[in-house]
């Protein structure tokens, strides 16, 4: 056996393996729990000890997307047989479908507001970060500090002034209002992160493009942007996760048209008893877009695309 400084020994490999598996279990278990609960019946969902093996049911998902009502036994018996599988699921609970729930709408609001603010934040953030990184901006350090200082208190601390302002100018409970709000909150983070990424891109690339006959703007989007893709992707994920999961502002500033999914999901509990499977189903579906977005951008999260192109 030769001794190596860089190769891990068998003991440390084993230890590292145990740590990774343990950490994975700790983080994945709540997810598995939520996803499993979504497919349980209400009785199984609150069973103690918890049921690991259970008979899967789509009741949670059906309840999530519908509103239901009880009818008298005579009326119930007089109903024609259920026409669809989900009608049957509801009938089995002794209820009938009264109409669709508002989950779909709320989910769509989350998509519009979450992705809208992320895109806006990336456009503004990249432009600002590029300017801070490349140009002589007067009071640059003070401006950067000022931008960062917007993060020095919890955003919710300014909820009341924002509520009053929004009400005054008619942004209350609008998609635009929420997009602007989340963009404003996220912008400081994205400017700082993106400035770091752009600082790392050697200015020679742009100079080479200028010499090669391109304008400053062409040099920016043909040479700098592809180089910054990694940074933009990871910053976008951070921004999306914040906007997607944000709860407090959404509760305060939205109620009807622009309500997002996070404030809506808890209201499911109140409709017809504690319907945990429906809540879990709502949470599961809510997870999907962020996961898909992250998986799509995963390639860009792996750094090292520029490795070796410039000798330092």
């Amino acid at each position, binding site marked *: 056996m030769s001794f190596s400084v860089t190769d891990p020994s068998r003991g440390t490999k084993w230890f590292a393996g145990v740590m990774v598996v343990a950490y994975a279990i700790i983080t994945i278990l709540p997810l598995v729990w939520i996803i499993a609960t979504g497919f349980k019946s209400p009785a199984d969902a609150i069973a103690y000890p918890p049921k690991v093996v259970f008979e899967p049911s789509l009741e949670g998902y059906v309840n999530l997307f519908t509103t239901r009502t009880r009818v008298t036994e005579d009326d119930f018996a007089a109903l024609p047989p259920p026409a669809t599988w989900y009608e049957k699921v509801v009938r089995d609970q002794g209820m009938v479908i009264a109409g669709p729930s508002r989950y779909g709408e709320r989910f769509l609001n989350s998509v519009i507001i979450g992705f809208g603010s992320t895109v806006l934040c990336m456009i503004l953030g990249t432009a600002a970060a590029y300017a801070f990184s490349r140009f002589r901006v007067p009071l640059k350090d003070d401006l950067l500090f000022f931008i960062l200082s917007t993060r020095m208190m919890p955003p919710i601390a300014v909820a009341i002034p924002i509520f009053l302002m929004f009400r005054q100018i008619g942004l209350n409970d609008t998609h635009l209002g929420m997009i602007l709000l989340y963009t404003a909150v996220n912008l400081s983070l994205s400017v700082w992160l993106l400035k770091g990424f752009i600082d790392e891109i050697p200015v020679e690339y742009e*100079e080479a493009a*200028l010499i090669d*006959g391109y304008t400053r703007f*062409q040099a920016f989007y043909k040479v700098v942007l*592809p180089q910054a893709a990694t940074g933009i992707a990871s910053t976008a994920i951070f921004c999306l996760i914040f906007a997607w999961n944000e709860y407090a502002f959404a509760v305060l500033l939205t109620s009807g048209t622009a309500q997002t999914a996070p404030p809506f999901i808890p209201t499911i509990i109140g409709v017809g008893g504690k319907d945990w499977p429906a809540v879990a189903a709502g949470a599961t579906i809510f997870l999907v877009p962020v996961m898909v977005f992250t998986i799509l951008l995963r390639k860009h999260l792996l750094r090292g695309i*520029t490795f070796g192109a*410039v*000798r330092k």
Partner: protein
Amino acid sequence: MAEIVIRNLRKDFGAFNAVKSSSFTIADGEFFMLLGPSGCGKTTTLRMMAGLELPTSGEIYIDGEEVGMKPASQRDIAFVFQMFALYPHMNVGKNISYPLISQGMPRAEVKQKVAEVARILGIENILNRPVGGLSGGDRQRVALGRAIVRNPKAFFMDEPLGALDAEFREHMAEELRALHDRMGATTVYVTHDQLEAMQMGDKIVVMNHGVVEQFGVPQQIYDWPATRFVAEFIGSPPMNFLDFQGRVDAGAEKVMLGDSGFAVPRQQDGASGDLTLGVRPEHVRLSDAAPYRGEIVAAEYLGTTQIITLDTAFGRVKARTPSHEVVRVGDRTGLEFDARTLSIFDAGTGRALVSDANREALAHG
């Protein structure tokens, strides 16, 4: 193909004055070296010529046209960066073709041009490779390819060999010079390496602290430095300096250092006070009979020659002699200087006094 004229070029960065009123002319097809220590303003001068910096004042003419305030993209020049600056998200072929694409050249023509350039540089087999994994030499060739592919008016190179391994530099220097001779395009090359400048350049500008110290062909600059700085910067080991107090009259052919007299080229102007006699190490001969004495303090063996260090009454002197000459540290010996090669500097201004020998070389400055 273009002549480049620099007139009273100046660049300030805030309070810092990077380039002070430089003027020189680069003839069409010349391989022109901008030489100086780091921070002397040579790179800033080149970047102003390329359009990557805007001059504070002064004019730059490329091919007769004043371009000082024009953007780089409109100057029709190529630039080779020290770090190559190959676009990392493109492969070799794409990198080389990129300047052509900006001109809107048809795809077939682009392909043909890239192939031609690749053949000249011997990189046909790597056109489809990403630039990330290339060796330093290949990266250098790709950077050159990107420069020559569109036949620009001039090539500007900022220490292009600086990032290469020592053994490879020599080879690339030859390749570069051969490429220049083949293309015949005006080339401006920035370096801090005096050997590189002498080896490759048709003409050299030596800069220091933002000022052009001397301008001329390599031999003139080496033999007849205009200032003490140039004499010290160029040559390894540099010129020897013997500081003395005295006077030189116009027409004099001899200077007195204390009691020792040295024959010098006939002086045109007189000077007195603090002066410096300059002599290149290869123009110092050891001779037992010579009256000017020194003690040998060190000898470095360099193969065919050796560098002997001597302490003399007017300062330390290094002599380059054939290595078969046997010397012993501690011995005292006499020194003779080759009279035709000596320069005298005014210690106050650092400038060389004009003599019959260096008059022509100094006239360019």
